[in-house]
Structure formats: C-alpha cells, structure tokens
C-alpha cells in the first residue's frame, strides 16, 4: 500500500477476495490519508466511525462467505448532496448547516447495501450550483494538481469538487457525484479522473437534495472506466420512490468494458468547435478521433444545429426548477431560521442569510422567468428549444453509436478567475450541458495533459439507455490514451 492512489475499486475488490488486505486495513489507511489531506478541504463532514463500523462488518461478511460483490469493503466518498441517515447533510449551504436527515437517499443506501464504506461527505458548490467549487459555505476546495512551474491554487471544477479532489489526492478510492449540467464530467476532466453521468432516470433522485429535477442525475467518479461501471451497477436501478426513475433492468455495465471499438461509428459534432478554444484541447480532440480510427472505428462528422442554444436554454430551465425546489427552505420545517416580526420577514431574512450569492442569483432568475407575463417568453420557449436539442441528438444517433467531444473548454483554472462574470463561469459547461438537456448518458475520460501539465478530458455521449455502448467506447479510449499522470502528493499524506 505504498501509494494509496494505486487502488482502484477493481484492484481493491481483488485484494479483498484474495485476503491480501482486509477492509479494516484499507479503511484505516484511507482515514489516515483523509485526515492528513485536510488542506484540500475535500470533506465537509468526516465519518471515520461509520467507516470503521462498515469495514468491520464487511470483513465479517467476507469471513462468513457472504461478501456482496466488488463494492463490499471499498472506501468511498459521498457527495454532501445525498441525504445520509443520522449524518449531517449540508448541500454546501448555510441554510442546511445543521440538517441531519432521518432517512437515507436511495443511491447512498444502494451503495451501503453493496458494502461500500463511506469515509465522509464531500464538499461541493452550494446546492451543486457552480463549476469551480468556490460557492460552498464550507469554503472552496483545492485541486491537488498544480500547473508546471507555477504555484497557483487551482479549482477542482464543480460542483462535485470535493469528490474529485478526494480521489485525485488519494483520500478515497472513488466517490459519488451528481450532474445537472456537467457537475460530474467537468471536475473529472479538471483532475484526470473518469466521471460518468448515466441516462436521466438510471439512478434514483430520491433523497438527493434537489437542484433542477428534470436534469439532476447521480453518477460515479472513479480512476478508471471499469470502476465507473462497477460503481454505477451498485448505484443504479429502478426506485418506486422516484417516479422518474427508469423501470428497466440494468445491463451488465462491467462486461461492456471488455468489448473493443472495432466497427463503432463515432460522431464528431462540428458545432462543438469553438472560437478561441485552447489549441491543446483541439489537438487532444483530434488525437481522440485518430485513436478511434486506429482501433478500427469509423469517424463521422455530424451536425447538432441547436448546440449554441443549449447553454442559454439551460440557464432558463435550471434556475426555474431551482427556484421552485428551493422554495422549501422556509425556516419552518428544517434548516436555518432567522427570526422576523412577521412570517414574510422570517422567510426573507432566513433565505437572505441562508443562501449564498450564486444561489440567490439563480433563484431570482428562476423566479423572474416563471413570473406572470414572462413564463411563455422564457420558460416555455426554453422547453421548446430543449425539444429541438433532444431531436438533434435523436437524429444523429440514428447514424452513429457515440459522439466524441472535449469535456470542458479549458483545463483547471486558478481560484479567483472568472469570479466576477457569472456568464464566463457558466461557459465551463458548454460541452456538457447539451447531453444533460437531452437526458443522455455521457462520460469524461482523461485524455492527456496540456502544455502546463494539467489534465484534459474527452467526453463521449451515447443515446438514451446506451450505457453499454458508452462504456465500450470509453474503455477503448482509456486504453488508447494510456493516461497515467498524477498530481504531486498532497502535503501531509504519506505515500
């Protein structure tokens, strides 16, 4: 166990089966790393007691011949957007600072039942609204990667910034994320990890603190594509408690990772070429296409004509849904209350103090676009354009199996950049938002390093419920890219 970052879910599962390591040993090593790695601010709440308890039970199950599969005994991080029974769940917000759920989200419960060992609740942008993990009430998260020859603190991306910092820094083996417009894929790209957003409805949203309900989707953040498949298998499945959860049996995701790319038709959407995109990103994208050609896949140029409207559509739909969802924080039933002389004043003071700047901005935008007289012009119009965007994808997937694009228009940037211009920050999600609007499965796979030595991801998008094709293409891309770079060790953690 020299470098904890050598562990994957698959290798840990193997070692546990062979008895080379126990879950308690593994868990203790990661607890030590988690505590030593606090400089990253990756966790809002550490849960070492829960972790040791679950690890002990996992070892006992294994001894009794009742091990539950590849997640059993594996230490993971849980994004602090998943409600965990008896463990504080904050959504990165002051308004939920002291909220202790009386129930377990379906996804975290599925992972618990699969034997996964929760080390703690990972930091995130407040209510998952952000692309840099700088809006958390509990402070910003530090990216373990640093640019070559410079000493800048980089953001880990967002909103699942704590999850990726924890994996990348060697504090956990894998972690959960949630993706509304790119919150799994973009941070994975910024930290050289794999981040997968399943088809909308594959994973239950029950017990996940809601941001934009028609877009929110949990998914895995891992070191490898195979790990993403293993972890998704444990997270996903129909849940009667979420009426939008897909009532379908799950395919064997891991098996799909063993198939090669020969004969795949890979589409390159021409509208994803942006003016002013860094040359390194264009180069990696071209290289990705070449890798697929070399593996016997066919590269096809395709067109998604409404791509440029995806981001403005998203910034109507998501804030509108957020303003409705966040109406529940009223200072009455749970969360922060700031006293006022009337009920209205109590609401206003509670929400004025409890929500941070970006959350307030989005709730106000959402309130405006849903208000009387503007609903048709903004919200209905956006949902019409959304239909056109989904239609673009549907047509393209009649012809190709997957689409290949960059994940993000830049590598990780320094803390403080893009902070005074919300729209510049929103542009981070320009390549990830379209698939979100159409509910499609998509994955970011680390492709290479830019000139500053920072990781860049490539995104693959597949049709509705075509996760097997996605994992197949992603495994092939991962093998071709052969990405093995790592950031320097996190100060304080022993390697």
């Amino acid at each position, binding site marked *: 166990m020299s470098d904890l970052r050598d562990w994957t879910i698959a290798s840990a599962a193997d070692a546990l089966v062979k008895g080379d390591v126990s879950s308690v040993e593994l868990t203790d090593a990661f607890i030590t790393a988690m505590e030593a790695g606090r400089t990253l601010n990756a966790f809002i709440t550490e849960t070492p007691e829960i972790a040791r308890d679950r690890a002990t039970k996992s070892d006992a199950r294994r001894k009794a011949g009742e091990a539950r599969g590849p997640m059993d005994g594996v230490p993971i991080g849980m994004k602090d957007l998943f409600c965990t029974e008896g463990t504080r769940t904050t959504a990165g917000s002051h308004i939920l600072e*002291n*909220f*202790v759920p*009386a129930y377990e989200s379906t996804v975290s419960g599925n992972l618990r039942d699969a034997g996964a060992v929760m080390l703690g609740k990972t930091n995130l942008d407040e209510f998952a609204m952000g692309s840099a993990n700088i809006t958390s009430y509990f402070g910003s998260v530090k990216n373990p990667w640093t640019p070559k020859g410079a000493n800048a603190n980089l953001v880990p991306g967002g909103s699942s910034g704590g999850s990726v910092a924890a994996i990348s820094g060697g504090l956990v083996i894998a972690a959960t994320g949630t993706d509304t417009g790119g919150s799994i894929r973009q941070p994975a790209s910024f930290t050289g990890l794999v981040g997968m957003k399943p088809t*909308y*409805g594959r994973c239950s949203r029950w017990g996940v603190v809601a941001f934009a309900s028609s*877009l929110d989707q949990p998914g895995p953040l891992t070191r490898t594509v195979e790990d993403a498949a293993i972890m998704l298998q444990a997270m996903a499945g*129909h849940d*009667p408690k979420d*009426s*939008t959860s*897909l*009532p*379908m049996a799950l395919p064997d995701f891991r098996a799909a990772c063993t198939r090669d790319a020969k004969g795949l038709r890979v589409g390159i959407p021409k509208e994803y070429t942006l003016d002013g995109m860094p040359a390194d990103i264009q180069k990696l994208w071209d290289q990705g296409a070449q890798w697929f050609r070399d593996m016997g896949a066919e590269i096809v140029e395709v067109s998604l004509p409404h791509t440029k*409207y995806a981001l*403005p*559509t998203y*910034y*109507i739909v998501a804030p509108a849904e957020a303003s409705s969802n966040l109406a529940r924080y*009223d*200072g*009455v*039933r*749970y*969360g*922060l*209350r700031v*006293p*006022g*002389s*009337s*009920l*209205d*004043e109590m*609401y*206003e003071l509670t*929400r*004025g103090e409890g*929500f941070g700047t970006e959350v*307030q*901005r989005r*709730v*106000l*935008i959402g*309130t*405006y676009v849903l*208000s009387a007289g503007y609903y048709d012009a*903004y919200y209905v*119009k956006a*949902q*019409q*354009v*959304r*239909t*056109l965007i*989904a239609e673009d994808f549907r047509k393209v997937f009649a012809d190709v199996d997957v689409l290949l694009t960059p994940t993000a228009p830049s590598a990780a940037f320094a803390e403080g950049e893009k902070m005074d211009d*919300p*729209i510049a920050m929103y542009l981070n999600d320009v390549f990830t938002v379209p698939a979100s609007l159409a*509910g499609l499965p998509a994955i970011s796979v680390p492709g290479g390093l830019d000139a500053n030595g920072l990781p860049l991801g490539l995104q693959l998008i597949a049709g*509705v419920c075509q996760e097997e094709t996605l994992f197949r293409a992603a495994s092939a891309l991962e093998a071709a890219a052969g990405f093995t770079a790592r950031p320097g060790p996190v100060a304080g953690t022993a390697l």
Partner: protein
Amino acid sequence: MSLSTDDVRKIAFLARIRVPEERLEPLAGELNNIVGWVEQLAEVDTTGVQPMTSVVETVTPMRADVVNDGAISDRVLANAPDGEGAFYAVPKVVE
C-alpha cells in the same frame, strides 16, 4: 427587456429573499446581463414545437395504493427550528 431596481425588489420579494437596498442596483446589472444573454433564444423558430415535458420517454409505473409510511412525527419534526409538541411553531400569521 431590462430589469429596473424596482423589478429586482419585486422579484426578491416573490422569492422571499431579503436583498439589502444597496445590492439592488448591482444585482439588476447582473440579472440583466444573464437575461440579455438567454434572450438569444428568441431567434430560434419554435413554431409548432412541443415544449419538453419528459426528458426520457418512459411509462410511469403505478404502485399499489397503500399506506406504507407514517406515524413518525418525532422524526419529521427532528430538524424543526422551533416546535411545540407535535407541531411546527411559526411567527403569528393572523393579525
């Protein structure tokens, strides 16, 4: 369409968010930038296009109409900032 500080004050009240008076004007600027940017959707021809109502087309399954939860008021109230017995407590509503 441009938002005035009065519009922002009204929206903030609709959203029940207290915005300090001195923040209204800068906030109007920020919101106008965002609203101005999303208004580019106006150039898309959406004549006859159905607004999206369901992201992934699927049949919504029915479940049995049975009581499967309840009688846990202590747990429901466990996070309440203020309560009285099995009730939430709020400031006086009726004058």
